[in-house]
């Protein structure tokens, strides 16, 4: 019965040996026996009931995935890679901000501009793309398949939360603080614009539900665009984790490329489709911010297409890892 074999393989990939042996194997064994003893006309129904029971058990057991301890070596390797990537790429992305006429015109010390304006923006831009090398650090470990998967799930959740916090609170607050410090004495500090407003402030903004006119600037449209963009940037780290994981699980002759090249490809794809999405939004009179979802849609399609390709099992010793 192929369905139960797949269920057992799924269980082995996601749960520890004890959970598989004591909880999921007995469920599958009873399911198999019920199927074999059922008359042919009842077998489809038996399959559905067994699959529903298995799905229910997996949902009930899913907290165990998050509670699976991550080996210290993997955790520190992942953190180091992400930190280095963000510092280097975020630092490089900070240079145009530091050299722009807007920041050079004001009299704020360079370290203040770097810490409060350039680095937060650079880190927000760089962080999602660090996920590719982070997944490689997990995947190239000697840990059991379920430990690797648990670590990847935790990475995706932590990355999403980090982006929500960074974009929604830390970066807007730091940017506004920079504007306050950059205001010459005697001048009025500019109030936070939408980019310097927290996500909560945008969600509760009184003008959020006012009229929007396609192809025209409206404050409601700008709020919506800002919110959509933040939502997309919060999702993309998890999406990139999934894309890289899927790519590593479905190896072909020239696929997946090394992590560095894959990061560049992902960045090109992301920014290319983001620009295209913005153009399409303008051309087809879509509501503001809709175009920001195009990179997500393309990445999802790409990930699904990767999964449709028959995996080549490279790790024969431990097929559960593939």
């Amino acid at each position, binding site marked *: 019965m192929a369905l139960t074999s797949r269920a057992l393989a799924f269980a082995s990939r996601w749960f520890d040996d004890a959970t598989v042996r004591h909880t999921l194997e*007995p469920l599958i*064994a009873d399911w198999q026996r019920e199927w*074999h003893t059922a008359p042919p006309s009842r077998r489809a129904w038996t399959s559905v009931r067994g699959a*529903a029971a298995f799905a229910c058990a997996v949902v*009930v057991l899913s907290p165990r995935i998050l509670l699976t301890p991550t080996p210290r070596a993997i955790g520190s390797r992942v953190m180091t890679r992400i930190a280095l990537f963000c510092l280097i790429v975020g630092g490089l992305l900070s240079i145009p901000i530091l050299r722009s006429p807007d920041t050079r015109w004001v009299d704020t010390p360079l370290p203040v501009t770097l810490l409060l304006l350039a680095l937060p923006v650079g880190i927000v831009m760089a962080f999602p793309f660090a996920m590719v090398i982070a997944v490689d650090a997990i995947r190239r470990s000697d840990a059991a398949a379920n430990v690797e998967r648990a670590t990847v799930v935790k990475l995706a959740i932590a990355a999403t939360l980090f982006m929500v916090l960074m974009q929604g609170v830390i970066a807007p607050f730091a940017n506004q603080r920079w504007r306050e410090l950059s205001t010459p004495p005697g001048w009025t500090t500019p109030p936070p614009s939408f980019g310097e407003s927290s996500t909560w402030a945008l969600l509760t903004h009184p003008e959020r539900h006012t009229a929007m006119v396609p192809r025209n600037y409206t404050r409601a449209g700008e709020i919506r665009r800002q919110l959509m963009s933040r939502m997309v940037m919060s999702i993309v780290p998890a999406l990139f984790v999934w894309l890289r994981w899927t790519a590593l699980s479905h190896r072909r002759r020239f696929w997946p490329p090394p992590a560095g090249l894959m990061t560049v490809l992902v960045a090109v794809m992301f920014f290319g489709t983001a620009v295209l999405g913005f153009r399409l939004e303008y051309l087809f009179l879509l509501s503001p911010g809709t175009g920001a979802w195009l990179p997500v849609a393309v990445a999802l399609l790409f990930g699904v297409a990767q999964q449709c390709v028959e995996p080549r099992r490279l790790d024969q010793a431990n097929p559960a890892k593939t």
Partner: protein
Amino acid sequence: MSDLPRLSNTERLIIELLMDHQELFGLRLVELSDGRLKRGTVYVTLGRMQEKGYLESRQEPLPPGGIGLPRRLYRPTGLAMRILAAWKAAEQIYITGGNPQEA
């Protein structure tokens, strides 16, 4: 004196069913429970009870020509039976207000 281990209603039902029938597999427990045990969660409870030492299990030998995984048969341990007896006694005392003559 150590605290009396907790016993949920589901755990209690499973121990009672197993005490009545000696040894059962998960799906049979669901059938015998008249809908009180659910197929999607009974195995999780059985696994947890095994970890607590309330149940022990063995794999049923496959019948001749049988394929697939062998089923797992569960039976209660002495610990589970003692805990159940203790809870029943405690309930009795609670109902009768501590006077066993009223039982």
